[in-house]
């Protein structure tokens, strides 16, 4: 049963050329990759494009995954790098933080409360520098501190420091808005 096979095994099988394993792998990682991309970019369209690029690049990249780390960790790193590349490209077009100001986000937030929340979120995410935002995007969802540290190539202590830094800034924003 494929269902019970974990991602690491799927990834190794896919790297060996097992087509069904690759299909199962991409099916299972699509949603979480899309979610992470969204949290990194703040735009649905960009998240979709990023996920698309990532997944079609995966067949070439998979052989590089040797199974020393968990596949999810590896995938986070690949995703993060792709997001950074993307961000750089955007920066050259001088719209670095456009994503979190996307009208799409506002339009979706129909309910008044959600509008407030999204508004606050946009303000908050925009106010954070890239490195803090990346750390948040990783840790607030799936990754453990240790994993985030591994992905970002920093120590676990730095992850904790970044989070408390982010907390400070968020608190400041909150006090500003109240």
């Amino acid at each position, binding site marked *: 049963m494929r*269902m019970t096979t974990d991602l690491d095994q799927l990834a190794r099988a896919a790297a060996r050329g097992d087509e069904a394993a690759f299909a199962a792998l991409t099916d299972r990682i699509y949603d979480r990759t899309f979610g992470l991309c969204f949290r990194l970019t703040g735009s649905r369209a960009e998240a979709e494009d990023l996920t698309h690029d990532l997944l079609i690049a995966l067949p070439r990249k998979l052989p590089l995954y040797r199974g020393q780390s968990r596949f999810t960790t590896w995938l986070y790193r690949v995703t993060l790098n792709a997001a950074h590349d993307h961000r750089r490209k955007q920066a050259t077009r001088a719209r670095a933080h456009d994503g979190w100001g996307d009208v799409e986000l506002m339009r979706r937030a129909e309910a008044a409360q959600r509008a407030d929340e999204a508004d606050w979120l946009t303000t908050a995410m925009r106010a954070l520098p890239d490195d803090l935002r990346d750390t948040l995007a990783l840790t607030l969802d799936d990754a453990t501190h240790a994993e985030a540290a591994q992905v970002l190539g920093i120590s676990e202590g730095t992850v904790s420091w970044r989070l408390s830094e982010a907390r400070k800034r968020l608190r400041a924003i909150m006090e500003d808005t109240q």
Partner: protein
Amino acid sequence: MTRDPLDDLKSALHSATPRPDPARRAATLRAAATEFSQENSLTRQGSADAPRPTPDRPAKWGLIAGVKQMLATLPARGALTATTALAAVGLIVLVPALQDGPPSPIRPSTEQIVEAVKDAPDVVPPVHLDLALEAPAMAPVTSRSAKSRIAATQTFAGGANAPAYDATRDPALQKQPENTEAFPEADPNPVKVTTDDPVSTFSVDVDTASYGVIRSSLMAGVLPPRDAVRIEEMVNYFPYLYPAPTDGAAFSTHVSTLQTPWNDGTQLVHIGIQGALPAVEDRPPLNLVFLIDTSGSMQDADKLPLLKQSFRLMLSQLRPEDEVAIVAYAGSAGTILKPTAASERSTILTAIDALQAGGSTAGQQGLELAYAKAEEMSAEGEVSRVILATDGDFNVGLSSPRAMEQFISDKRDSGTYLSVLGFGRGNLDDATMQALAQNGNGTAAYIDTLQEAQKVLVDQLTGALFPIADDVKIQVEFNPAQIAEYRLIGYETRILNREDFNNDKVDAGDIGAGHSVTAIYEVVPVGSGARLTDDLRYAAPASASDVQTDEWGYLKLRHKAPGASTSTLIETPITAESDARLGGETAFAAAIAGFGQVLRGSVHTGDWGFGDAIALASGAIGDDPFGYRAEAVRLMRLAQSLAN
């Protein structure tokens, strides 16, 4: 203001994260698969077959994998209970991750945590769901060791500002797609008092979808939802050895009575209708339009791949003069295969193999296109039929199911029939399937296995595709001098008004070549202690003297020749006699009807339960060449274990 801003950010991020667009998702997955096979054909030619990944549970993340698998096998309400258990379990896993500040030196080791939760998914095995639902407080922790470890870990990790873990926010637990199945809601037919309401009218039903859904539920280890149980479809799933009609009649009717298995004071009136089976060589040429749902959700193994295999099986049954066309609908509808003679097997097979899932569903457009194709193909003396295969999504796009029903009803008069094949679970819109097939002069079947595909599309191809009688209606008038009360078992969604019987404009079910239809009434003879109602004190007493007959009732049946607009009438009196030729057949039908009522939680079956149904059915298996009846007994046994 002591709230942690990170919590707010987390919840805001979660609610802002959009659900992935299924069309986009499917497109990306397809592109990735293409990329993969290209990459592999370039670099890995000649490499040995990779071993299949083994399903053994890895040391790390085994919890998540196990939890996911468990959720995948649980029904929605079961999952709800299980997540209660997981919330408690998840707490110890995720609290360290969300903890404030540097990691605590006395954090429990991974081994400890894994150890503590290892047993947890087993705490609520799927089989005991109902039990767990009744006693939710018991569910989270039944293993004493797990309990003590959880307590211990909480002391370690439960810092003052450790955020509460919210299971509904955990993406691992959210992976389970929402169950959006829809079943028609219909209350069981009530007991009628013969003096008040002596006439019962209904349309025949040759659908079998309900039995397929019940089987798929039971095989997945859960009792089916009550509204999914349509007793007439269960009874009619099985072939019965009713004597075939003679001298050119379209069908024969057989009425028999027997003792009710679940009530000593009542009798069952068993009405069996057997359609004629014209020699297969004589059948008219057939025009088939496969209308195939290729939306993203169809990619599961039990959907599009099973559908492809099923159609391949069916193709072998077609004759060279038959024609096949394929229309797919997903996002936009399109013709995949122009009308092609069945003799061009390889062309048709290639078209079937090329079908891919992706995109959202545009049912209406697809239907319009399919009917247009069918009309284009039809010629004098041929039978045209649209075969709709879907996992349930019809209604993306312009139109409501009601408008589609309307569309299909209009097309019905053009002479094109419609069959609906349901695939897969989770999103099955049984109610719409049923309504569409009913309005389109067709049948609805649910295909859960290749065997079922064989039964529906190969063994019963002739019956499924060649109507021998249209708009078959049954009306029974009971004699108040003999029968005090009666109740029609099943057919809730097929009840007609008394005046509809003689009105040829009113649509009803169709009978295909060789189909048999069975209907069962439970009747209470006058003077039986099992009566549920009392005589009225002030009403005039039933004038038994007027009708000097020992007939229990009178059966009338109307049907039209295929394509005809006026109906013919067949009449048979119902007497207390039981037809000895039908002995085992009526007993088996009664066992299935009883089984269905127990599944529905009927008030009429009393203490009679699954065990009695098993005993009755096992004794009436008779000649069962394909093993359908033996399978029914196995399902009853499964249901019995699941219900306990």
